[in-house]
């Protein structure tokens, strides 16, 4: 492993970072920053919480302020999508400020802090969520139906993708990699033999799953987060991804996020005007599982080994590819 001493590494110096956040707060919100702390989790995004003028905010930025990974939207487009979702009545945290190069913070934006839980395991296990957990799958189906009906301005120039394109992209990542993965190869073959029929493209969240939803003990689903992978594509992608076994966080008998059943999720989606193609949603579950496996085995490992992100966290995610192998085998043997 090579370690590169690039300028971004120096920028993570804690006090220096706080100074720049303070300058940003002074110029944008007219008061200094207090209680700055990094929120844990989030290998692909850094989240920092702080207080400014008695109001709580969250700053989201790419790790170390570096430019976005190839899949992620520019932060300004992500913020525009969040505005469009809010206008459609979808609960999202309002974006207060999009950082510019002169802020010297990197690609980042500041959004309002919303009270609620995002840690999937807490949502699934803590007693305070017992009352709202049974309705979460229904709430998820409703919010997705609303999202998929948003008309997006072509000015936003969002990326497009479909089932065949996504499969091709990830199969290429797999085949560029020196390490052979027979189970992934089996999944690639099954998916190419079972491509769903194309359907009219819609606005797809692209990372809709337990962990990217905010849940309160009183109201259940209160915010939809992490819009950096939003694109135009097949709506069934958003119905398949939350059912990927890795996003059930140990509750395999509750396929939707570890909290609900597909029947409730699909019924709510259809009640709000969506149209479910179950075979296609199943395709996207299996493709989603393969994608997560390839992200771990290929992309995370490559980022770690190249020195682009030499953190222990990044390296250890590489080893999560084995969980997707056993999940894919169970799915391909029709036991899931």
């Amino acid at each position, binding site marked *: 492993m090579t370690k590169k001493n690039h300028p971004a590494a120096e920028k993570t110096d804690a006090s220096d970072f706080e100074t720049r956040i303070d300058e940003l707060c002074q110029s944008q919100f007219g008061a200094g920053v207090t209680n700055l702390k*990094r929120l*844990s989790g989030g290998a692909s995004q850094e989240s920092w919480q702080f207080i400014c003028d008695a109001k709580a905010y969250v700053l989201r930025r790419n790790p170390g302020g570096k430019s976005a990974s190839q899949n992620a939207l520019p932060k300004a487009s992500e913020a525009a999508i969040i505005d469009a979702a809010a206008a459609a009545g979808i609960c999202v945290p309002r974006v207060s400020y999009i950082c510019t190069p002169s802020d010297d913070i990197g690609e980042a934006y500041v959004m309002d802090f919303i009270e609620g839980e995002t840690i999937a395991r807490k949502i699934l296990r803590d007693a305070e969520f017992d009352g709202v957990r049974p309705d979460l799958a229904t709430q998820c189906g409703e919010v997705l139906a609303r999202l998929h009906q948003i008309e997006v301005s072509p000015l936003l120039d969002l990326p497009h993708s479909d089932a065949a394109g996504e499969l091709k992209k990830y199969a290429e990542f797999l085949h560029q990699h020196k390490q*052979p993965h027979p189970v992934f190869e*089996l999944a690639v073959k099954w998916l190419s033999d079972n491509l769903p029929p194309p359907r009219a493209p819609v606005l797809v969240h692209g990372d809709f799953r337990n962990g990217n939803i905010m849940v309160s003990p009183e109201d259940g689903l209160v915010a939809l987060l992490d819009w950096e992978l939003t694109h135009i594509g097949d709506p069934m992608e958003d119905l398949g991804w939350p059912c990927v*076994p890795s996003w059930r966080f140990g509750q395999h008998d509750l396929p939707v996020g570890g909290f609900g059943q597909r029947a409730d999720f699909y019924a709510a989606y259809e009640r709000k005007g969506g149209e479910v193609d179950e075979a296609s949603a199943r395709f996207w579950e299996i493709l989603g599982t393969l994608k997560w496996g390839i992200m771990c085995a290929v992309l995370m490992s490559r980022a770690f080994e190249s020195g682009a992100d030499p953190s222990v966290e990044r390296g250890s995610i590489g080893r999560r590819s084995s*969980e997707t*192998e056993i999940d894919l085998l169970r799915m391909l043997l029709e036991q899931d």
Partner: protein
Amino acid sequence: MQDRPAAEDLLAAVRGFLNDTAMPQLQGHAAFSARVAGNVLDILARELALAPGFQKAETRRLKALLDVGPDAKDDLLTLNRALCDKIASGEMDLSTPDLRDHLIKVSMGKLAIDQPRYQGYKTAQANNWPEEESK
């Protein structure tokens, strides 16, 4: 032959230092990273103990599946690439005798090292899926 202490004992000492000394002094993201680091040490300890036997079993099954001759290259990289080619071409799939058993055992072995507490691993055990062989 490497001198003692043994690698597994040194790893256990680092794990003890992390648990007993370092972690109680850490907060926030650093505490989170330390927990991740502890998990990685556990992976390494299991890999040291299990991987040599697992690799022998995987190699033996691959040679039988692929019917490789006695003089052919039999390192795991070469064998697994040959298996991937046969799967990609459709020559082998889950209905191929012994392939399903082989892939399950290899994946079970990886999980026994990487994350033996993963739900999918426990589900597989509950369904009597076979563990990787140790020699």
